[in-house]
Every structure is written in structure tokens, then in C-alpha cells.
């Protein structure tokens, strides 16, 4: 009896063993198996280099260069030599040995994976360390491929730059196969086309033993370089534009109005993207971030009051809605009575008796106020949208704002007021609530140039023709009327854009001088297009708080036209 009880106690204890192995091997087996696999398999990643970005003539805008990093392989360093090693290394690198020791601790992964001690060291230092290798056991110079922004400031807002992924971004990027350590495009084309530009990282799968010593290479996958981008940018033009605008706050866009290809896009002031790549540029980065002129802002996509350049739209709306025709005359006496208030045309003495052609040439406000009262907000908003205002142009750059085409509903929601006739009057001359970006402005004027087709401005050459199927939006007949006025802006004696006049080139343009707020200088706009032997170009030159569109911007536009004239010959 007592023997039986002893037996059951012992059998019970054995049953615990059986159920535990069942639990561990059958229920939890796969989990333990994964753990055993991660015990023995180590990944040593090898980064892929990014694709190169070219201009339209295959001149690289962004390339890669060799960077030298100092790494240490822990299992080749004896712990008693570590301090001495860091002391020696610190002399070469001019980095405190305590910082090296800290980097070693922080970046340690396992015995055989190289630990990053110092990134992107000068080439000469790298060679020095290579020579002194015998003294620096366990330390190696590793080469890697990093971004080289060849055009520096000139193409900063176009190409953008890359940076380290932030921890909070990782969960989102993980879905697309990114790794925490990957560099990602932070702005510009680098961001927009990150998936194309980034290569496929390669690496080695190693089997290791408990010491971390390599037993064998299980597999090796070489990294695959990212795809190149071929852009439509004309580097010579881009450099010219960059020199012309330089550090003036503003933007210049030059596109082919037929295809939407962006030939140049510059935002001033600019920054050198290389500061985000090369080490120890914290001071330079700090200066960029603290600069009150916000060099990181891409003003070509930022929205502003467009001012008188919007009169093109008002003119089109008036003609389309048959409120005016090419012969309709209004008298400008320098001011305009609207209800109880009076507002004045920019020319206090008045433009006298003006028709549409003259009104565009001289940018007469009174003419367009008259039109606006007859046309009303609803129709004007509709035509503004036809020209692409109030929505993204779809240009292949990140974070393009839509701008604002106001209407009664918009005003009610945002300003909590009803729409007044004065709002329509402001709207008609590109003031008030209307907001548009230089790239939207150049799209508008391109539609005038190409006979009324909607275009998609794009920087990367598009082999896929389907998106280039053009949708005709505007009436060619009406545009013809407007073009006469736009031509006079540059070529007629009273034209507001005479500064852009280039003999022998057909130029169509409109100036804008948009009120930007009390006490501030107005925004200066100059949009238009020019016809050459084999090509048309449309442009928008914008200067934030830049004064009169017919001055600085028109002068820059003239240089752009001269560039093409020299290249193509006039028409």
C-alpha cells in the first residue's frame, strides 16, 4: 500500500517531465526554434548605393562618393588593450578617446559585427590609419557609398537630401521593406522617388558558434544599386537661374508648356544639401535652420497671393461668359466705386478708356473690377479651377500644397463671414483670399501657351505616355484674344513687363504686384511664355516681398529668354 503511494508520487513527478517537454517542444517548439536559429545565424548587412540623378543631357546632379568609416571588430580586440587602442585612435581621428569608447559600447551588436567608431572621416586620415594598421589591432577602415550633391545650392530644392530614419517613422517604412538603419529621402526628388533610388541592401548570412566565431557563410546576396533618375532639368539653365535669383527670397520655374517638362526650378535662398551628408556640419545645419529666410522652404511650391497675374483668368472668364468681348471698353479714372467704399487703380491718374488688350498690357485694375461685378464669385472660382488653381499640379516633388480658390462656402468656413462684392473684386485681381504657388502660376500660363491643354509639370522624364494625354480645357479662340494683351505687356510702350523685352522673340507675359500685408513690400510676379524656333518655354519668376513684378522678376525672365534665344534662335 505504502509502496503504491510511493510509486504514484514518482510517476506523478515523471508526468510533470512529460508534460513539460510536450509544452516546450510541441506547443512552444516553433518559438524556441526561432530562438535557436537567431542564436546561430547572424546577418552582416551590406548597404546598396542609391541611384544617380541626371539632368536632361545626362549630366549628373547627384552622384555617390566613397566615404571612409572607422570600425572596430570586437572579437579581435582584447579587452585589456581597448583603452590603449582608443587612445591611439583618438590621436589620428582627433576625437576624444572617451567618445570612441562610448560609440563602441553604444553600437556594439555582437563579437564579429564591425562596430562604427567614426563615420565619414577625411580621406587622408583614412590612409594614415590604413598605414598604422599593425598598431591598431581590430580596427579597420571601411568604405561606403554616400551621397554627393554635385550641384550644391543650385539644385537643392529639386533633388533634396537624404537622412537617417527616425524611430517613429520606422513602423510605417517597415511595410515597404525598409530597415531602421536605412537612409531615406528627406525632401525633393530624393524623397519623392526614394523607392526607386534606394537600392536593395545585400548582406551575408553567417552561421556562428557560441563564441560568435564564423563557422560558415550560409548565403551571400550582393547589394543591388538603386535605379537612376533621368530628369528633364537643363543644368545650364538651372545654374543660370540659380545665379540670377541667388539669395533673393523667391522662386523660378521654367517648363515646356507643351509637355510639362520642368527645365529649371529654383527656390531662393537655397542651401547646400551636402551639409546633411558630411559629418560635423552641425554648425552649418544650425545656420540653415535658424536662418529667418527659411532656406529649406521650397518657394516654388509655396502659395502666395498671385496678384495681377490672375487677371489672365479673370479675362478668360469674362470672355467665356460673354460679359466682355475684345472691344468692350471701360473707363479707368484711377478709382472705382463699390458700394460705399472707393478703391483705386494702381495708376492713380487712371488708364482712361481701356479695352481688354490694353487692360492686360497696363494691368488696369478698374477694368477687371468692372468685369468681376458682372461675372460674380461662382463663375470666377470655376474658371480659376479650370486653370488649375486650388489643386495640386501633381509635380513630382513632395508636399505640394493646393493653394486656395475662395468661394462663399470657403469664406464661411474659414473666416466665418459671408461673401461680399468687394471679395469678388479682390479675387478678380488676384488679391484677397486667393493663394497660388509659382508652379501653379507657370501651369496657368502654360495652358495659355499650349492652346488650352492641361499639363502635368514633371521633373523626371516620363516614358509612360498615358499621363501625357492632353486634355483640352480652354478655348483656343478666347486664348488668342488674351495673348494679344500678354504680348503687349512686354512689347507695347506702356507694357508693365517691358523689362523682359527681347527683340526677335515672341514673348507673352503678365506682371503681378500682390499686396502681401500692411507695411510689407508686395510680392512680385512675372509669368509668361516665349516662342523660339523649335520650342516654347513658359516661366514664372517670383520674388517674395520683391516689389514690382515688372522690375526684378522681369529682368530675370529676360535673362532666361536670352538663354534660349542664344540656344535656339528667335522665332
Amino acid at each position, binding site marked *: 500500500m*505504502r509502496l503504491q503511494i*510511493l510509486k504514484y508520487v*514518482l510517476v506523478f513527478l*515523471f508526468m510533470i*517531465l512529460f508534460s*513539460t517537454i510536450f509544452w516546450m517542444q510541441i506547443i512552444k517548439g516553433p518559438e524556441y*526554434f526561432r530562438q*535557436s536559429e537567431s542564436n546561430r545565424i547572424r546577418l552582416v548587412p551590406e548597404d546598396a548605393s542609391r541611384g544617380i540623378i541626371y539632368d536632361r543631357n545626362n549630366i549628373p546632379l547627384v552622384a555617390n562618393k566613397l566615404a571612409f568609416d572607422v570600425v572596430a571588430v570586437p572579437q579581435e580586440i582584447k579587452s585589456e588593450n581597448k583603452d590603449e587602442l582608443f587612445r591611439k585612435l583618438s590621436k589620428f581621428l582627433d576625437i576624444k578617446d572617451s567618445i570612441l569608447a562610448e560609440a563602441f559600447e553604444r553600437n556594439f551588436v555582437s563579437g564579429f559585427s564591425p562596430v562604427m567608431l567614426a563615420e565619414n572621416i577625411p580621406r587622408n586620415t583614412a590612409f594614415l590609419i590604413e598605414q598604422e594598421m599593425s598598431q591598431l589591432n581590430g580596427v579597420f577602415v571601411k568604405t561606403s557609398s554616400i551621397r554627393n550633391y554635385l550641384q550644391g545650392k543650385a539644385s537643392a530644392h529639386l533633388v533634396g537630401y537624404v537622412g537617417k530614419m527616425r524611430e517613429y517613422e520606422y513602423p510605417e517604412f517597415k511595410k515597404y521593406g525598409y530597415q531602421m538603419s536605412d537612409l531615406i529621402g528627406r525632401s525633393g526628388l530624393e524623397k519623392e522617388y526614394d523607392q526607386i533610388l534606394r537600392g536593395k541592401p545585400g548582406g551575408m548570412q553567417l552561421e556562428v*558558434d557560441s563564441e560568435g566565431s564564423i563557422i560558415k557563410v550560409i548565403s551571400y546576396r550582393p547589394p543591388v544599386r538603386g535605379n537612376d533618375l533621368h530628369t528633364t532639368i537643363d543644368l545650364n539653365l538651372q545654374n543660370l537661374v540659380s545665379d540670377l535669383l541667388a539669395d533673393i527670397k523667391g522662386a523660378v520655374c521654367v517648363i515646356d508648356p507643351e509637355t510639362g517638362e520642368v527645365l529649371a526650378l529654383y527656390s531662393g535662398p537655397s542651401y547646400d544639401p551636402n551639409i546633411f551628408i558630411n559629418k560635423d556640419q552641425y554648425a552649418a545645419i544650425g545656420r540653415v535652420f535658424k536662418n529667418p529666410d527659411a532656406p529649406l522652404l521650397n518657394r516654388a511650391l509655396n502659395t502666395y497671393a498671385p496678384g495681377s497675374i490672375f487677371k489672365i483668368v479673370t479675362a478668360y472668364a469674362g470672355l467665356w461668359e460673354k460679359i466682355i468681348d475684345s472691344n468692350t471698353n471701360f473707363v479707368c479714372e484711377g478709382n472705382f466705386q463699390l458700394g460705399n467704399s472707393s478703391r483705386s487703380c494702381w495708376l492713380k491718374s487712371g488708364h482712361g478708356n481701356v479695352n481688354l488688350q490694353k487692360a492686360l498690357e497696363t494691368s488696369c485694375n478698374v477694368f477687371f473690377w468692372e468685369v468681376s461685378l458682372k461675372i460674380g464669385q461662382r463663375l470666377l472660382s470655376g474658371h480659376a479651377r479650370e486653370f488649375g488653381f486650388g489643386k495640386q499640379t501633381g509635380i513630382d516633388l513632395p508636399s505640394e500644397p493646393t493653394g486656395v480658390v475662395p468661394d462663399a462656402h470657403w469664406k464661411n468656413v474659414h473666416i466665418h463671414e459671408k461673401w461680399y462684392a468687394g471679395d469678388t473684386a479682390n479675387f478678380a485681381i488676384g488679391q484677397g483670399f486667393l493663394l497660388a504657388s509659382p508652379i501653379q502660376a507657370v501651369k496657368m500660363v502654360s495652358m495659355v501657351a499650349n492652346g488650352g491643354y492641361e499639363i502635368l509639370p514633371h521633373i523626371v522624364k516620363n516614358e509612360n505616355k498615358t499621363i501625357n494625354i492632353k486634355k483640352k480645357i480652354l478655348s483656343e479662340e478666347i486664348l488668342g484674344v488674351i495673348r494679344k494683351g500678354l504680348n503687349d505687356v512686354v512689347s507695347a510702350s506702356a507694357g508693365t513687363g517691358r523689362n523682359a523685352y527681347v527683340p526677335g522673340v515672341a514673348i507673352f507675359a503678365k506682371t503681378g504686384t500682390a499686396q502681401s500685408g500692411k507695411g510689407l513690400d508686395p510680392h512680385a510676379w512675372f509669368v509668361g511664355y516665349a516662342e523660339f524656333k523649335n520650342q516654347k518655354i513658359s516661366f514664372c519668376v517670383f520674388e517674395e516681398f520683391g516689389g514690382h513684378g515688372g522690375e526684378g522678376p522681369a529682368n530675370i525672365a529676360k535673362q532666361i529668354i536670352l538663354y534660349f534665344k542664344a540656344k535656339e534662335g528667335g522665332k
Partner: protein
Amino acid sequence: MFRVSFFRDFDKILSIILLTILVFGLIALFSASYQRHIDTGKDFVLTQGIGILIGLAVVYLIARTNYHSFLSVAYIIYGIHIFTLILVLVMGKSALGAQRWISIGGIGIQPSEFSKIFTILALARMIGDNPHCLQSKRGLIGPFLIAFVPMLLIFKQPDLGTAIVILPVFLAMVWVGGVRFKYFLVAIGSGLMCLPFFWHFLKDYQRDRLMVFINPNVDPLGAGYTINQSKIAIGSGMLLGKGWLSGTQNQLNFLPERHTDFIFSVVGEEWGFVGSAIVIGFFLLLIIRGIKMAEMTNNLSGKLIIVGITTMLALHVIINIGMTLGLMPVVGIPLPFISYGRSALTANLIAIGFLFNVKIHRTVF
């Protein structure tokens, strides 16, 4: 006097179970020592095989000699062994922070392995001679001292594992010997009350092991490393195992002590649940057979020898495997007949020899 028929009463079932376990052991040891064999050139399987052959010869010799002869000298052997234990404490060789070894004629032996058997024999003699001693408090003092003196000496060495085994063996023997239920409960109760007292006497590394047993992740690269790696090895074997010689935890050296105390981790990893269950199953058969043999024995001393030895072997298996599964603290008890190591192998085979012996000589008075 009845005539003893050695072969008629030789327990064939037990021998088949034993031989099967021994063969399993050699196969497992071959894999567990494979890398070490390559590295050091030392042939563990050959050494163990020779140890088994010598051990089986000893089994035969012990089985032949009537256990009553052993019982008659049990007190003398016990006395000598107590003296040896004191000797180990005074001049023993320290291995892994513990003084368990003494060198006799150049061969290192671990007296504590044999201590358990001598204690069982002495207890069986004392209770067998006077079963009534278990019915009174004063009578229990004798058996109690026989168990606790070696336990304390071994504990001092310190060999926590062996000391831990003696206590339940003592309890099992007095239980089957017919101790009054009340006293049995008192014995268990006082044993539990002694636990904090034991903790006080533990060395730091033993406390670490116990703490790590409670939570292996306190120090995953230090004291907890072995337990974690062992659990990973066993668990990763899943249903059918990774195959003989193919356990990555084993062959890539993630398992320390894998040819000795942690050999079951190799079994678990390479043979999977099926193989592990078969190995544990054979041990269970061995234990059940032992109990069966105790039932077949009328002589109280003989019965108690079997009970003591069966309980001892069962505890070796449970503690060792429990340790590799993370159910028990790491106390350094090898897996009987499978772990590499001469002292434990010989001692366990001697113990098995007594099982055969009592069965053969059970009708002899």
C-alpha cells in the same frame, strides 16, 4: 537454505531496460561530445564505454554476493565513508568551486556519489533489524542521524544536489518501512522549516543558481545562460528533433556542460519530443520495475534497499531533466547512465547491482 538460481532470478526486464538506456546514452554522448572530441582528441564514448563494461562487471559481482553480506558490513562501510567525507572536506580537490573530489591512486573519485548507496544500506540494516524503531520518537533518532550526518557533510562540500537527494530517499525508506504517519508529517514539516537555514549556508554561486532558477533572465549571459540555452535547445527540437549530430545548439557550442549534466538538452534538441519521451519513458519503466521488485521482496531490509535505490535513481532523473527544462535549480546532478562521468556511472551501476541482488536473493534467509 534454498539454492540460489542466479539466472532464473536474474531480472531480465530490468536488464533490458538498463541496457537500452545505456545504449541511448552512448549514442547521445557521441553527439554531445562530437565537437569536443574533434577539438581535444579525447574519445569520450570510448572512455564511457569502458566505464560501462567495468560497471557491468561490478553489477555482476554485486548481484552474485548475497546482500545480507553487504548488510552485515553496512555500518563499517558507512563509518569509513563518513571518515572519507570528512577527509574530502579537509583535503579535497576543488572542482568548479566545490570540494567533491579526492584522488585515490591517481584516480579522482567523488565519494558523495557512493555516499548515497552506503547511507541506503546502513538505513536498510537499521530499520530491517528493528522495524519498531519507526514507531517511537527515540527509535527514529538512529535512522535520522544515519541520513543527516552524511547529508550535512556533503552539503558542506558543497554538493547541494547529492545532499538534496538524500532527504527524500530517507523519507521514502521510513515511509515504506512503516513509520507512524504523524512522525512522517513532522519530518516533512521540519525539513521545510530547515530551508531558510540551508539558504544561510549556501555559497554565493549556489544562491545565484537558485535566483536564476526563479528567473533565468536576471542574468541571461551569466548564471542564467545555461538554463536559457538548454531550454532553447530542447524546445527547438520540436516533434522529431534536428537529427543526430545536427543540433545547432549542441554542435555550435551554445550548450555548456552538454556531455555531462546537460546531456538531456542534446537529446531534446536532436531527437525531439519523440526521442525525449522515449528516453524519459525508459527511465519511468526502470522506476516502475524497481517498485515492482520491491513488492516482490518480503525481507524488509531487501525491500528498503530497493526502495532507497529506486527513489534515488528516480530523483536523479527528475532533478537532472527538470534542471535542463528549467523546472529545477542547477544543482549538478548527472543523468544516470547517460551523462559522461565515471563516478556517477559507477555509483549508479552499483546501485542497480543491488536491485538485481535483492531480487536474486529475495528468498534466502
